[in-house]
């Protein structure tokens, strides 16, 4: 494999909590990692859903309301359009399975296995009242914007 320190880093901000966008993010991340590049994914705001365990979140009234409306882990994420209360999600999953496309949870595991850094945004976690314990164990760290900006300077930067 190419020397990892020579290769350009890949830094992806995952802002969207949509299945289609999360898939694009994980596909790019796993491919970059497969090319021997140090890859990080910064999950922020709606993107946090892709790294949540799925338990109800929140402390205060609004936080709990949000946690209820936004409940579920990576398996409950729907497409950015045509979700129709979950039917669209089910249809897309079926179509992808029939065509041999790797599912989102499997893609996430693949990313973990390939050493992609899963990082969570401290600020959006605070706002949405999502705690470290609400996130999957494989999340490497909880960081701020400066961490992303720094990593992004050293290679490819994406906002999904």
């Amino acid at each position, binding site marked *: *494999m*190419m020397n990892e320190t020579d*290769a350009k880093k890949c830094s992806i901000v995952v802002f969207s909590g949509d299945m289609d966008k999360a898939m694009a993010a994980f*596909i790019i991340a*796993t*491919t970059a*990692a*497969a*090319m*021997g590049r140090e890859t990080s994914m910064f999950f922020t705001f709606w993107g946090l859903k892709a790294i949540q365990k799925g338990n109800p979140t929140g402390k205060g009234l609004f936080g709990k309301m949000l946690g209820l409306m936004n409940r579920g882990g990576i398996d409950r994420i729907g497409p950015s359009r045509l979700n129709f209360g979950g039917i669209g999600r089910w249809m897309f999953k079926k179509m992808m399975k029939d*065509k*041999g*496309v*790797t599912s989102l949870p499997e893609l996430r595991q*693949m990313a973990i296995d*390939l050493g992609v850094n899963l990082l969570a945004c401290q600020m959006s976690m605070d706002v949405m009242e999502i705690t470290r314990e609400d996130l999957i164990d494989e999340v490497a760290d909880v960081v701020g914007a400066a961490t992303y900006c720094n990593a992004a300077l050293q290679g490819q930067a994406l906002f999904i």
Partner: protein
Amino acid sequence: MSEFTPTKTLDARGLQCPMPVVKTSQEIKKVSVGDILEVLATDPGSMADITAWCKSTGNELLKMDKGDGVFKFYIRRVN
């Protein structure tokens, strides 16, 4: 060029992006430097992808075959 004898074959047929490239990156570690990995794929995107992966990682794409809807790649591990 004479026929290659692959040390290992990766069957990625039926798998879609990004799996052909991801699995290639994992399998190449299991052959020694200088050995040849044969990769089978049905994903049409793999033609460009495997080529790009080889270019990016420095591994040598010796040959690419297309036949009966199956793409065959012969990759020599360089590093």
